[in-house]
Protein backbone atom coordinates (compact mmCIF):
# COMPACT_ATOMS: atom_id res chain seq x y z
CA UNK A 1 0.00 0.00 0.00
CA UNK A 2 1.38 3.34 -0.91
CA UNK A 3 1.83 5.91 1.80
CA UNK A 4 -0.12 9.05 1.17
CA UNK A 5 1.99 12.17 1.47
CA UNK A 6 -0.08 15.11 2.42
CA UNK A 7 0.37 18.81 1.94
CA UNK A 8 1.95 20.81 4.77
CA UNK A 9 -1.31 21.90 6.33
CA UNK A 10 -2.24 18.36 7.29
CA UNK A 11 -4.63 18.64 10.26
CA UNK A 12 -2.67 16.25 12.47
CA UNK A 13 0.66 17.90 11.75
CA UNK A 14 -0.89 21.25 12.40
CA UNK A 15 -2.46 20.28 15.67
CA UNK A 16 0.75 18.76 16.97
CA UNK A 17 2.61 21.90 16.05
CA UNK A 18 0.08 24.28 17.51
CA UNK A 19 0.04 22.21 20.66
CA UNK A 20 3.77 22.73 21.17
CA UNK A 21 3.52 26.37 20.28
CA UNK A 22 0.74 26.88 22.76
CA UNK A 23 2.59 24.96 25.40
CA UNK A 24 5.74 27.00 24.82
CA UNK A 25 3.79 30.21 25.02
CA UNK A 26 2.03 29.12 28.20
CA UNK A 27 5.34 28.17 29.81
CA UNK A 28 6.93 31.46 28.93
CA UNK A 29 4.21 33.31 30.80
CA UNK A 30 4.90 31.30 33.96
CA UNK A 31 8.55 32.01 34.59
CA UNK A 32 8.45 30.55 38.07
CA UNK A 33 7.65 27.08 36.82
CA UNK A 34 10.91 26.88 34.93
CA UNK A 35 13.10 27.99 37.77
CA UNK A 36 16.14 26.06 38.69
CA UNK A 37 15.81 25.03 42.31
CA UNK A 38 19.52 24.80 43.06
CA UNK A 39 20.51 26.80 46.12
CA UNK A 40 22.62 29.93 45.82
CA UNK A 41 25.31 28.11 47.75
CA UNK A 42 25.51 25.32 45.15
CA UNK A 43 25.38 27.80 42.31
CA UNK A 44 28.23 29.87 43.72
CA UNK A 45 30.32 26.74 44.07
CA UNK A 46 29.62 25.79 40.47
CA UNK A 47 30.39 29.35 39.44
CA UNK A 48 33.77 29.15 41.11
CA UNK A 49 34.50 26.12 38.95
CA UNK A 50 33.69 28.07 35.81
CA UNK A 51 30.19 26.71 35.21
CA UNK A 52 28.43 29.25 33.01
CA UNK A 53 25.02 27.70 33.46
CA UNK A 54 25.20 28.51 37.17
CA UNK A 55 25.58 32.17 36.32
CA UNK A 56 22.66 31.95 33.92
CA UNK A 57 20.52 30.53 36.73
CA UNK A 58 21.57 33.26 39.16
CA UNK A 59 20.87 35.81 36.46
CA UNK A 60 17.36 34.44 35.96
CA UNK A 61 16.87 34.60 39.70
CA UNK A 62 18.16 38.08 40.45
CA UNK A 63 18.50 40.12 37.26
CA UNK A 64 14.91 41.38 37.52
CA UNK A 65 15.39 43.10 40.86
CA UNK A 66 18.95 44.21 40.13
CA UNK A 67 17.86 45.82 36.89
CA UNK A 68 14.71 47.32 38.43
CA UNK A 69 16.59 49.02 41.24
CA UNK A 70 19.22 50.33 38.83
CA UNK A 71 16.51 51.66 36.53
CA UNK A 72 14.66 53.31 39.40
CA UNK A 73 17.85 55.12 40.38
CA UNK A 74 19.42 56.07 37.04
CA UNK A 75 16.27 56.10 34.88
CA UNK A 76 18.26 55.09 31.79
CA UNK A 77 17.96 51.63 30.29
CA UNK A 78 21.47 51.68 28.83
CA UNK A 79 23.14 52.63 32.11
CA UNK A 80 20.96 50.21 34.04
CA UNK A 81 21.99 47.36 31.78
CA UNK A 82 25.64 48.31 32.14
CA UNK A 83 25.26 48.11 35.91
CA UNK A 84 23.46 44.80 35.62
CA UNK A 85 26.20 43.38 33.40
CA UNK A 86 28.99 44.65 35.62
CA UNK A 87 27.47 43.14 38.73
CA UNK A 88 27.02 39.68 37.27
CA UNK A 89 30.36 39.83 35.52
CA UNK A 90 32.00 40.77 38.82
CA UNK A 91 30.25 37.85 40.48
CA UNK A 92 31.56 35.55 37.75
CA UNK A 93 35.12 36.74 38.10
CA UNK A 94 35.14 36.73 41.88
CA UNK A 95 32.90 33.81 42.70
CA UNK A 96 35.70 31.98 44.45
CA UNK A 97 36.19 34.90 46.86
CA UNK A 98 32.56 34.92 47.74
CA UNK A 99 31.80 33.28 51.04
CA UNK A 100 28.54 31.72 49.98
CA UNK A 101 28.20 29.77 53.19
CA UNK A 102 27.23 32.99 54.91
CA UNK A 103 24.28 33.35 52.60
CA UNK A 104 22.64 36.53 51.50
CA UNK A 105 23.77 36.56 47.88
CA UNK A 106 20.50 38.17 46.82
CA UNK A 107 20.80 40.97 49.37
CA UNK A 108 24.41 41.50 48.36
CA UNK A 109 23.44 41.82 44.69
CA UNK A 110 20.72 44.31 45.57
CA UNK A 111 23.13 46.42 47.61
CA UNK A 112 25.68 46.33 44.79
CA UNK A 113 23.05 47.41 42.29
CA UNK A 114 21.89 50.28 44.44
CA UNK A 115 25.41 51.46 45.28
CA UNK A 116 26.63 51.34 41.72
CA UNK A 117 23.52 53.07 40.43
CA UNK A 118 23.80 55.85 42.99
CA UNK A 119 27.47 56.28 42.14
CA UNK A 120 26.44 56.76 38.54
CA UNK A 121 23.59 59.06 39.44
CA UNK A 122 25.76 61.31 41.56
CA UNK A 123 28.71 60.95 39.22
CA UNK A 124 30.76 59.74 42.09
CA UNK A 125 33.71 57.56 41.65
CA UNK A 126 32.74 54.23 43.09
CA UNK A 127 33.99 54.75 46.61
CA UNK A 128 32.99 51.39 47.87
CA UNK A 129 33.31 48.97 45.01
CA UNK A 130 31.28 46.09 46.39
CA UNK A 131 33.52 43.45 47.76
CA UNK A 132 32.53 39.90 47.12
CA UNK A 133 33.51 38.87 50.61
CA UNK A 134 31.26 41.49 52.19
CA UNK A 135 28.29 39.19 52.43
CA UNK A 136 25.02 40.04 54.02
CA UNK A 137 23.76 37.18 56.12
CA UNK A 138 20.08 37.43 55.66
CA UNK A 139 17.28 35.42 57.12
CA UNK A 140 15.09 36.50 54.23
CA UNK A 141 14.78 33.93 51.54
CA UNK A 142 15.34 35.49 48.14
CA UNK A 143 16.38 32.32 46.37
CA UNK A 144 13.24 31.94 44.35
CA UNK A 145 11.26 34.49 42.46
CA UNK A 146 8.13 33.36 44.26
CA UNK A 147 9.75 34.22 47.58
CA UNK A 148 10.98 37.52 46.13
CA UNK A 149 7.48 38.32 44.93
CA UNK A 150 6.01 37.64 48.36
CA UNK A 151 8.54 39.82 50.10
CA UNK A 152 8.09 42.45 47.43
CA UNK A 153 4.37 42.73 47.97
CA UNK A 154 4.91 42.96 51.73
CA UNK A 155 7.41 45.78 51.38
CA UNK A 156 5.48 47.62 48.71
CA UNK A 157 2.28 47.60 50.71
CA UNK A 158 4.15 48.81 53.81
CA UNK A 159 5.61 51.69 51.80
CA UNK A 160 2.27 52.47 50.17
CA UNK A 161 0.71 52.72 53.62
CA UNK A 162 3.19 55.37 54.73
CA UNK A 163 2.11 59.02 54.79
CA UNK A 164 3.42 60.68 51.63
CA UNK A 165 6.15 62.79 53.29
CA UNK A 166 7.59 59.72 55.04
CA UNK A 167 7.55 57.75 51.84
CA UNK A 168 9.29 60.57 50.02
CA UNK A 169 12.04 60.77 52.64
CA UNK A 170 12.61 57.04 52.43
CA UNK A 171 12.70 57.05 48.64
CA UNK A 172 15.11 59.98 48.48
CA UNK A 173 17.40 58.22 50.92
CA UNK A 174 17.28 54.84 49.28
CA UNK A 175 16.93 55.56 45.58
CA UNK A 176 18.89 58.79 45.42
CA UNK A 177 21.36 58.10 48.18
CA UNK A 178 20.59 61.35 50.03
CA UNK A 179 21.67 62.15 53.56
CA UNK A 180 19.40 63.83 56.11
CA UNK A 181 20.56 67.31 55.17
CA UNK A 182 20.30 66.64 51.44
CA UNK A 183 16.72 65.51 51.89
CA UNK A 184 16.09 68.63 53.95
CA UNK A 185 17.45 70.82 51.15
CA UNK A 186 15.49 69.00 48.51
CA UNK A 187 12.16 69.08 50.35
CA UNK A 188 12.62 72.40 52.13
CA UNK A 189 11.70 70.77 55.44
CA UNK A 190 13.71 71.37 58.61
CA UNK A 191 16.39 68.77 59.35
CA UNK A 192 14.62 67.58 62.49
CA UNK A 193 11.41 66.95 60.58
CA UNK A 194 13.29 64.98 57.96
CA UNK A 195 14.92 62.77 60.60
CA UNK A 196 11.60 62.12 62.30
CA UNK A 197 9.97 61.16 59.02
CA UNK A 198 12.74 58.91 57.85
CA UNK A 199 12.88 57.16 61.19
CA UNK A 200 9.12 56.62 61.18
CA UNK A 201 9.37 55.10 57.73
CA UNK A 202 12.24 52.84 58.77
CA UNK A 203 10.34 51.78 61.86
CA UNK A 204 7.40 50.72 59.71
CA UNK A 205 9.77 48.71 57.54
CA UNK A 206 11.24 47.04 60.62
CA UNK A 207 7.79 46.08 61.82
CA UNK A 208 6.77 44.51 58.58
CA UNK A 209 10.02 42.56 58.34
CA UNK A 210 10.33 41.58 62.02
CA UNK A 211 6.94 40.15 62.84
Amino acid at each position, binding site marked *: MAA*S*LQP*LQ*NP*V*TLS*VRTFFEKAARALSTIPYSQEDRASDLDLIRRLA*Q*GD*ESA*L*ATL*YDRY*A*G*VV*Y*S*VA*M*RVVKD*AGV*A*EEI*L*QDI*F*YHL*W*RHASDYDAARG*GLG*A*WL*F*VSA*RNRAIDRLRRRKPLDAPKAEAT*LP*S*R*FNLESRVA*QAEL*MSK*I*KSAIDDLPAPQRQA*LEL*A*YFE*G*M*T*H*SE*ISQRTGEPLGTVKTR*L*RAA*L*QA*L*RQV*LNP
Partner: protein
Amino acid sequence: MSEHPQIEEMFDEYALGALEGEEKRSFESHVKACPECSVKLEEARARVALLALAAPQQQPAPAAKERLMDRLRSHRLPAAATAQRTPFWGWGVPLFAAATIALAVATGLLVRQNLETDRRLKNLQAQVALMQRQEAAEMARARTVLEILTSPRTLKVSLVSTPTRPVPQGKAFYNPQKGLLFYAANLPRLPSDRTYQLWLVPVEGKPISAGVFETDEHGNGEVLLPSLPPGISAKAFAVTIEPAGGEPQPTGKKVLIGAVS
Protein backbone atom coordinates in the same frame (compact mmCIF):
# COMPACT_ATOMS: atom_id res chain seq x y z
CA MET B 1 33.12 52.69 75.29
CA SER B 2 30.63 55.20 74.00
CA GLU B 3 26.97 54.59 74.58
CA HIS B 4 24.85 52.42 72.34
CA PRO B 5 22.88 54.40 69.77
CA GLN B 6 19.78 55.76 71.45
CA ILE B 7 17.52 55.18 68.51
CA GLU B 8 17.21 51.73 66.96
CA GLU B 9 16.43 53.23 63.54
CA MET B 10 19.90 54.73 63.47
CA PHE B 11 21.24 51.36 62.34
CA ASP B 12 18.95 51.47 59.34
CA GLU B 13 19.77 55.12 58.70
CA TYR B 14 23.46 54.32 58.72
CA ALA B 15 22.89 51.36 56.39
CA LEU B 16 21.00 53.70 54.06
CA GLY B 17 23.81 56.23 54.12
CA ALA B 18 21.58 58.95 55.52
CA LEU B 19 23.69 59.68 58.60
CA GLU B 20 26.34 62.36 58.25
CA GLY B 21 28.78 64.51 60.14
CA GLU B 22 29.29 64.04 63.84
CA GLU B 23 26.30 61.71 64.15
CA LYS B 24 27.87 59.35 61.61
CA ARG B 25 31.34 59.49 63.14
CA SER B 26 30.23 58.68 66.66
CA PHE B 27 27.96 55.91 65.39
CA GLU B 28 30.83 54.34 63.46
CA SER B 29 33.31 54.51 66.28
CA HIS B 30 30.85 52.91 68.67
CA VAL B 31 29.81 50.09 66.33
CA LYS B 32 33.41 49.26 65.52
CA ALA B 33 34.03 48.54 69.19
CA CYS B 34 30.70 46.94 70.05
CA PRO B 35 30.02 43.36 68.86
CA GLU B 36 26.37 43.61 69.83
CA CYS B 37 25.85 46.69 67.69
CA SER B 38 27.83 45.17 64.80
CA VAL B 39 25.28 42.40 64.67
CA LYS B 40 22.48 44.93 64.73
CA LEU B 41 24.09 46.81 61.89
CA GLU B 42 24.39 43.65 59.81
CA GLU B 43 20.71 43.03 60.37
CA ALA B 44 19.88 46.59 59.38
CA ARG B 45 21.95 46.26 56.20
CA ALA B 46 20.12 43.10 55.24
CA ARG B 47 16.80 44.82 55.97
CA VAL B 48 17.60 47.96 54.02
CA ALA B 49 18.87 45.84 51.10
CA LEU B 50 15.32 44.58 50.67
CA LEU B 51 14.14 48.08 49.77
CA ALA B 52 15.42 47.18 46.30
CA LEU B 53 12.24 45.15 46.03
CA ALA B 54 10.23 48.38 46.26
CA ALA B 55 11.57 49.55 42.88
CA PRO B 56 8.94 49.36 40.14
CA GLN B 57 9.41 46.06 38.33
CA GLN B 58 11.36 46.32 35.10
CA GLN B 59 12.73 43.54 32.95
CA PRO B 60 16.10 43.87 31.25
CA ALA B 61 16.12 43.36 27.48
CA PRO B 62 16.30 39.64 26.69
CA ALA B 63 19.49 40.32 24.72
CA ALA B 64 21.17 41.58 27.91
CA LYS B 65 21.60 38.03 29.12
CA GLU B 66 23.12 37.01 25.79
CA ARG B 67 25.54 39.91 25.98
CA LEU B 68 26.53 38.91 29.49
CA MET B 69 27.10 35.29 28.52
CA ASP B 70 29.17 36.40 25.51
CA ARG B 71 31.29 38.58 27.77
CA LEU B 72 31.85 35.64 30.08
CA ARG B 73 32.98 33.42 27.26
CA SER B 74 35.37 35.99 25.90
CA HIS B 75 37.12 36.08 29.27
CA ARG B 76 36.89 32.49 30.19
CA LEU B 77 38.42 31.54 33.49
CA PRO B 78 40.97 28.80 33.38
CA ALA B 79 39.37 25.57 34.45
CA ALA B 80 39.36 25.23 38.19
CA ALA B 81 42.20 23.20 39.55
CA THR B 82 41.28 19.57 39.65
CA ALA B 83 40.55 18.21 43.06
CA GLN B 84 43.48 16.79 44.91
CA ARG B 85 43.49 13.04 44.98
CA THR B 86 43.50 11.66 48.44
CA PRO B 87 46.35 9.23 49.10
CA PHE B 88 45.13 5.74 48.41
CA TRP B 89 48.07 3.41 48.88
CA GLY B 90 48.60 2.34 52.47
CA TRP B 91 50.63 -0.46 53.99
CA GLY B 92 47.92 -3.08 53.78
CA VAL B 93 47.13 -2.50 50.14
CA PRO B 94 50.29 -3.98 48.53
CA LEU B 95 49.95 -7.13 50.64
CA PHE B 96 46.35 -7.52 49.64
CA ALA B 97 47.22 -6.94 45.99
CA ALA B 98 49.97 -9.60 46.07
CA ALA B 99 47.58 -12.14 47.59
CA THR B 100 44.97 -11.32 44.97
CA ILE B 101 47.45 -11.80 42.13
CA ALA B 102 48.62 -15.17 43.50
CA LEU B 103 45.05 -16.35 43.79
CA ALA B 104 44.23 -15.17 40.27
CA VAL B 105 47.22 -17.06 38.80
CA ALA B 106 46.20 -20.30 40.54
CA THR B 107 42.64 -19.91 39.36
CA GLY B 108 43.82 -19.21 35.84
CA LEU B 109 45.79 -22.46 35.68
CA LEU B 110 42.83 -24.52 36.81
CA VAL B 111 40.45 -22.78 34.47
CA ARG B 112 42.71 -23.37 31.48
CA GLN B 113 42.48 -27.13 31.89
CA ASN B 114 38.74 -27.05 31.62
CA LEU B 115 38.67 -24.49 28.92
CA GLU B 116 39.42 -26.55 25.86
CA THR B 117 36.70 -29.14 26.56
CA ASP B 118 34.22 -26.42 27.34
CA ARG B 119 35.01 -24.40 24.27
CA ARG B 120 33.61 -26.81 21.72
CA LEU B 121 30.46 -27.45 23.62
CA LYS B 122 29.90 -23.77 24.16
CA ASN B 123 30.41 -22.96 20.49
CA LEU B 124 27.66 -25.37 19.54
CA GLN B 125 25.38 -24.10 22.27
CA ALA B 126 26.02 -20.50 21.27
CA GLN B 127 25.16 -21.20 17.65
CA VAL B 128 21.87 -22.77 18.58
CA ALA B 129 21.05 -19.97 21.03
CA LEU B 130 21.89 -17.32 18.48
CA MET B 131 19.60 -18.84 15.91
CA GLN B 132 16.83 -19.10 18.45
CA ARG B 133 17.29 -15.52 19.54
CA GLN B 134 17.34 -14.21 15.99
CA GLU B 135 14.16 -16.07 15.19
CA ALA B 136 12.46 -14.86 18.34
CA ALA B 137 13.57 -11.28 17.73
CA GLU B 138 12.29 -11.35 14.19
CA MET B 139 8.95 -12.73 15.33
CA ALA B 140 8.67 -10.10 18.03
CA ARG B 141 9.52 -7.37 15.59
CA ALA B 142 6.96 -8.53 13.10
CA ARG B 143 4.36 -8.71 15.83
CA THR B 144 5.16 -5.19 17.02
CA VAL B 145 4.96 -3.80 13.51
CA LEU B 146 1.58 -5.43 13.05
CA GLU B 147 0.35 -4.16 16.41
CA ILE B 148 1.42 -0.62 15.66
CA LEU B 149 -0.30 -0.67 12.30
CA THR B 150 -3.56 -2.10 13.57
CA SER B 151 -3.95 -0.62 17.05
CA PRO B 152 -6.67 2.02 17.35
CA ARG B 153 -4.46 3.82 19.90
CA THR B 154 -1.74 4.45 17.37
CA LEU B 155 -1.34 8.09 16.39
CA LYS B 156 -0.85 8.66 12.69
CA VAL B 157 1.22 11.67 11.78
CA SER B 158 2.37 12.47 8.28
CA LEU B 159 5.72 14.25 7.98
CA VAL B 160 6.42 16.18 4.85
CA SER B 161 9.48 18.04 3.76
CA THR B 162 9.38 21.78 4.13
CA PRO B 163 9.26 23.50 0.77
CA THR B 164 12.58 25.30 1.13
CA ARG B 165 15.14 24.73 -1.59
CA PRO B 166 18.83 25.41 -1.35
CA VAL B 167 19.36 29.12 -1.88
CA PRO B 168 21.14 30.05 -5.12
CA GLN B 169 24.50 31.65 -4.43
CA GLY B 170 27.33 33.07 -6.44
CA LYS B 171 30.84 34.27 -5.74
CA ALA B 172 32.89 36.55 -7.98
CA PHE B 173 36.64 37.18 -7.67
CA TYR B 174 37.52 40.16 -9.80
CA ASN B 175 40.80 41.82 -10.43
CA PRO B 176 40.45 44.67 -12.99
CA GLN B 177 43.89 43.90 -14.49
CA LYS B 178 43.94 40.14 -14.30
CA GLY B 179 40.37 39.08 -14.82
CA LEU B 180 37.31 37.48 -13.32
CA LEU B 181 36.47 34.16 -11.70
CA PHE B 182 32.87 33.35 -10.94
CA TYR B 183 31.23 30.37 -9.28
CA ALA B 184 27.54 29.76 -8.71
CA ALA B 185 25.71 27.08 -6.77
CA ASN B 186 22.14 25.88 -6.26
CA LEU B 187 20.82 27.51 -9.44
CA PRO B 188 17.64 25.92 -10.79
CA ARG B 189 17.91 24.03 -14.08
CA LEU B 190 16.81 26.10 -17.09
CA PRO B 191 14.89 25.02 -20.18
CA SER B 192 17.15 24.39 -23.19
CA ASP B 193 16.27 27.67 -24.88
CA ARG B 194 17.45 29.70 -21.87
CA THR B 195 20.85 30.32 -20.37
CA TYR B 196 22.42 32.08 -17.41
CA GLN B 197 24.44 35.17 -18.28
CA LEU B 198 26.91 36.93 -16.00
CA TRP B 199 27.20 40.74 -16.05
CA LEU B 200 29.81 43.09 -14.81
CA VAL B 201 28.10 46.34 -13.80
CA PRO B 202 30.74 49.09 -14.12
CA VAL B 203 30.86 52.16 -11.91
CA GLU B 204 29.95 54.13 -15.00
CA GLY B 205 28.12 52.97 -18.09
CA LYS B 206 26.06 49.97 -19.13
CA PRO B 207 26.49 46.39 -17.92
CA ILE B 208 29.16 44.38 -19.75
CA SER B 209 28.54 40.72 -20.55
CA ALA B 210 30.99 38.40 -18.84
CA GLY B 211 29.66 35.40 -20.69
CA VAL B 212 26.96 32.77 -20.52
CA PHE B 213 27.19 29.59 -18.51
CA GLU B 214 25.42 26.27 -17.96
CA THR B 215 24.71 24.53 -14.69
CA ASP B 216 25.32 20.89 -13.84
CA GLU B 217 22.79 18.58 -12.16
CA HIS B 218 23.60 20.13 -8.75
CA GLY B 219 23.00 23.65 -10.00
CA ASN B 220 26.71 24.55 -10.04
CA GLY B 221 28.08 26.79 -12.74
CA GLU B 222 31.23 28.81 -13.39
CA VAL B 223 32.69 31.50 -15.59
CA LEU B 224 36.49 31.54 -15.63
CA LEU B 225 38.54 34.39 -17.09
CA PRO B 226 36.02 35.72 -19.65
CA SER B 227 37.33 38.28 -22.12
CA LEU B 228 36.64 41.69 -20.64
CA PRO B 229 38.11 45.10 -21.45
CA PRO B 230 40.97 45.59 -18.96
CA GLY B 231 40.87 48.06 -16.06
CA ILE B 232 37.10 48.39 -15.65
CA SER B 233 36.00 49.42 -12.15
CA ALA B 234 33.15 47.17 -11.13
CA LYS B 235 30.21 48.37 -9.05
CA ALA B 236 28.38 45.05 -8.98
CA PHE B 237 28.00 41.65 -10.56
CA ALA B 238 24.70 40.11 -11.60
CA VAL B 239 23.33 36.95 -13.18
CA THR B 240 20.25 37.05 -15.39
CA ILE B 241 18.30 34.47 -17.35
CA GLU B 242 18.55 35.18 -21.08
CA PRO B 243 17.63 33.46 -24.34
CA ALA B 244 20.14 30.77 -25.35
CA GLY B 245 23.37 32.28 -26.66
CA GLY B 246 23.09 35.39 -24.49
CA GLU B 247 22.21 39.00 -25.12
CA PRO B 248 24.34 42.15 -25.55
CA GLN B 249 22.42 43.80 -22.67
CA PRO B 250 20.45 42.16 -19.86
CA THR B 251 16.80 41.56 -20.69
CA GLY B 252 15.70 38.76 -18.38
CA LYS B 253 15.06 38.21 -14.72
CA LYS B 254 17.93 38.88 -12.27
CA VAL B 255 18.64 35.77 -10.22
CA LEU B 256 21.81 36.81 -8.41
CA ILE B 257 23.25 40.20 -7.67
CA GLY B 258 26.13 41.35 -5.53
CA ALA B 259 27.50 44.82 -5.03
CA VAL B 260 31.25 45.33 -4.73
CA SER B 261 31.81 46.32 -1.14
